[in-house]
């Protein structure tokens, strides 16, 4: 099969390497999205026992269970159910949460912005600080200078990278919320409530990523083209930001992308530390309470977000560093 399509594709890829790369990545994401839909649909059918029976309780009459099944469309053949399910997802009809007694779409509309803001702010903070810290550490310790500083840097970052977000969250709550009483320890409207959760989410990742940024930067600083840049006697700002930064950004962004999808998991944990009214607390509550419609919808949403983020990272890298598209061919 590959050999049949190969000649045509090579011709296209030769002429438009970037376009071919984009198409390949988008195609891959569509396949994964379909897989996610099938899995999340299958999830309800894989639940042991009868979810409708579980919802209505053991004493509900059989007729009520049948009626509820018909209402949910569970008496339809499986392909029909899947079609209905996908249609429901596309039209925003996601069923009703059995615990909150609200349409799932409403629950999500209310909670998604809270989670997105939290994760988004944390991501920006992580990228900015880890690139800055990592580059500064690299410039300070290049060619084996400041070996004491290097040891301090790797030990400190190693320590913070190991502490899980939720433990860090608890520690921050205790130190800055309870003892010092500087910041709110749980969700409330306003900027101050974001400080501790964002810190809990970002400190570990900053530590992990800035270590990688340092090593990548050291690599770049030793490259021949940096010698050329130095031979031009450019100001330090241009030498580091224009000549070094783009060359270490590819690998940093790749890892940052992985980290961002990991951040979705971490957000779930941190939201639960800070009683944050986001998707993370909702999904955990819904799983524990066997609120399947809500759990299913949030799973699809979070899964799709991960896939879209990965695609976006690939595309950005393709634009920043055209070699990465070439390398794939």
């Amino acid at each position: 099969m590959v050999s049949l399509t190969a000649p045509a594709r090579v011709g296209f890829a030769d002429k438009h390497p970037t376009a071919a790369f984009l198409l390949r990545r988008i195609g891959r994401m569509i396949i994964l999205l379909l897989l996610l839909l099938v899995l999340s649909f299958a999830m309800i059918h894989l639940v042991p026992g009868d979810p409708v029976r579980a919802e209505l309780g053991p004493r509900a009459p059989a007729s009520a269970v049948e009626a509820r099944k018909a209402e949910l469309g569970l008496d339809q053949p499986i392909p029909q159910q899947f079609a209905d399910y996908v249609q429901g997802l596309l039209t925003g009809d996601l069923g009703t949460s059995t615990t909150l007694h609200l349409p799932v779409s409403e629950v999500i509309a209310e909670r998604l912005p809270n989670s997105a803001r939290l994760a988004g702010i944390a991501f920006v903070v992580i990228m900015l600080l880890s690139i800055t810290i990592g580059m500064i550490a690299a410039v300070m310790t290049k060619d084996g200078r400041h070996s004491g500083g290097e040891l301090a840097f790797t030990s400190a970052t190693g320590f913070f990278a190991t502490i899980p977000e939720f433990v860090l969250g608890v520690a921050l709550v205790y130190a800055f919320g309870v003892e010092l009483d500087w910041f709110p320890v749980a969700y409330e409207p306003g900027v101050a409530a974001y400080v501790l959760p964002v810190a809990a989410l970002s400190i570990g990742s900053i530590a992990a990523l800035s270590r990688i940024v340092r090593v990548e930067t050291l690599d770049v600083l030793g490259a021949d083209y940096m010698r050329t840049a130095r031979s031009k006697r450019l100001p330090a700002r241009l030498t580091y930001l224009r000549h070094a930064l783009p060359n270490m950004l590819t690998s940093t962004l790749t890892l940052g992308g992985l980290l961002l999808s990991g951040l979705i998991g971490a957000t779930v944990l941190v939201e639960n530390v800070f009683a944050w009214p986001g998707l993370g607390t909702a999904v955990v509550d819904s799983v524990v309470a066997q609120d399947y419609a809500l759990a299913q919808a949030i799973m699809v949403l979070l899964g799709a977000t991960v896939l879209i983020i990965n695609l976006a990272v690939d595309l950005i890298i393709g634009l920043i560093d055209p070699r990465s598209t070439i390398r794939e061919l």
Partner: protein
Amino acid sequence: MAQRGLVRTALRTPTGALALVTVVLLIVLAIVAPIIWGDKAATANVDHLLEGGSAAHPLGTDNIGRDLLARTLVATRLSLVLAVLTVLVGAGIGVPLGALPTLLGRRSARLTAAVTDLALAYPALLLAIFLGIILGAGPTAAVVALGIASAPAFARLTQTLAASVAGSDYVAAAHVLGLSRRRVLFRHVLPNIAEPIILNVTVAIGYALLALSGLSFLGLGVQPPSYDWGQLLTSSLNRIYVVPEAALGPCVAIVIAGLAFNGLGEALARASSTRSTYVRSPVRGTTSAFEPILPVADQLRVADDPVLVVEGLTVTFPTADGTIAPVRGISFSIGNGERVAIVGESGSGKSLTALSLAQLVPHPGMVRADRLEFLGRDLSDGTDPEGVVGTSMAMVFQDTSTSLNPALRVGTQLSEVAEVHGGLRRAEARRRAVDRLREVRLSGPERRLRQFPHELSGGMRQRVMIAVGLMGEPRLIVADEPTSALDVTVQQQILRLLKEIGDDTGASCLLITHDIAVATEMCDRILVMYAGRIVEDIDASRLWEGPAHPYTRALLAAVPDMDTDRDVELASIPGRPPDPADLPTGCAFAPRCAFATDKCREDRPPLLLDKTDSHRVACWHPQQGSVVAHEDDRLESEVG
């Protein structure tokens, strides 16, 4: 055996030792804690509900009066056991999955790799929640989910390792001998990749422990009445205002366990990677070795209207065995518009000489000079207050595939010089860039500005590199082996271009090359370097009538015919250049020289001007007359 050696190496670092001791302590605790404190942890005491820390209960008590310190200690067992189970599930799925390609062949290998890549990108926690829905929240779902989630990492690792082992000679031999794939896998591949996989297991236990605590913390892992650290933390969290020490126990336990397993894994990995190649870091700051190599009796006649004057230039590098000096007190000058070549074998110090002029010697190298003047400005202290190097000295480097920035367009790399040093606006700088690209005879200059270096050929890139140098107002072009990475026809074009540019702009040129034929073709004067010193300084026009130094004569005799491959470096001079860390006391060339006497071996000959006042040579037995063809044959037989 190998494993024990590894642990011993890991133990030598303090962090490795600490991590190992902690891990052992945790294992001991996991075994004995439930036996010793099991009862205390389970005993409810209605008189001491939800208490804070006290002598009897250092971390306080929970909602039915059970001692929290005892519970934290007892929870070690369940926390650890679940983490180990998770890793067993992960390795149990991942390792066979990764080894599968070795069994099945190429096509399925690619498929498995694609699947693992995709699975790696999916967060473990979401998978755990997904399985929690299907299996119900509890430790089974948590262990299975985290196990599955960690499987891709094991699969990827196994796959990479197996692929490298499978490509090795002994596995190829096993295939030739007709061993089945299965036998190859179990006999040859798995034993050889066991060590890195075991290392990874250690780190994975740490991660699993943290992730499981997280799930229990969320209420998706261990369910009451069972308890692990995560579960204990959850039940203490809502009391953090009143009894913060209640949350302290599980927090500290999680952090210590995580750090210990990660630290041990890292220490083991470091030990396994450094066991074979242990490199000592270079000793720093010993400059005492400087002095004895500087007795400058060398003579220098400074050119009229000099662009560059160098006296006593020395470059030193600290190494583990003391300081070495690849450039040893050389003196030369370059006149206005003059083209000078430095010729020498690799290791002669010629490239470092070029780099030191532009103050680009890499750390920890140190540059010293009695006199280093460029355009009348003193650069000997390593500074360049007026910025003459940036504007008036152009550097052309050897390997254009690495010397141009791969992430920046050609236009940026050209115009920034004019923007920074000439104060030109972007549009003006780009106009000048187009102009310079035209000067270096590059076709379609406007289009080239928008291209990236990888879109150009090697010869085109070298033209760009030269154009970069021309963006300022260069008075000296330093070209370090500008044609070595190019093929022969392009070499000629680039050399011609450099010459034309010199003629057009009046800039002087310092060409660094190992090819004396190129040097004579291109330059007015030739400096021959050997073991960090200039041994001869001669006009190119006089070279063929007779250089004085035996080394120069050997180089000339070794010049290949038209059809010989020029990439082969001076293959026909007998012997090897000396090790810069171990130079002979006298003339460095003496061991390879047919004319060497005891004087040569004892006293270093100074570089002295001859009576013509333009020719310098450092030799006790200067030769005369034109070079006999294949004089090197005689050299070889006598050195023999």
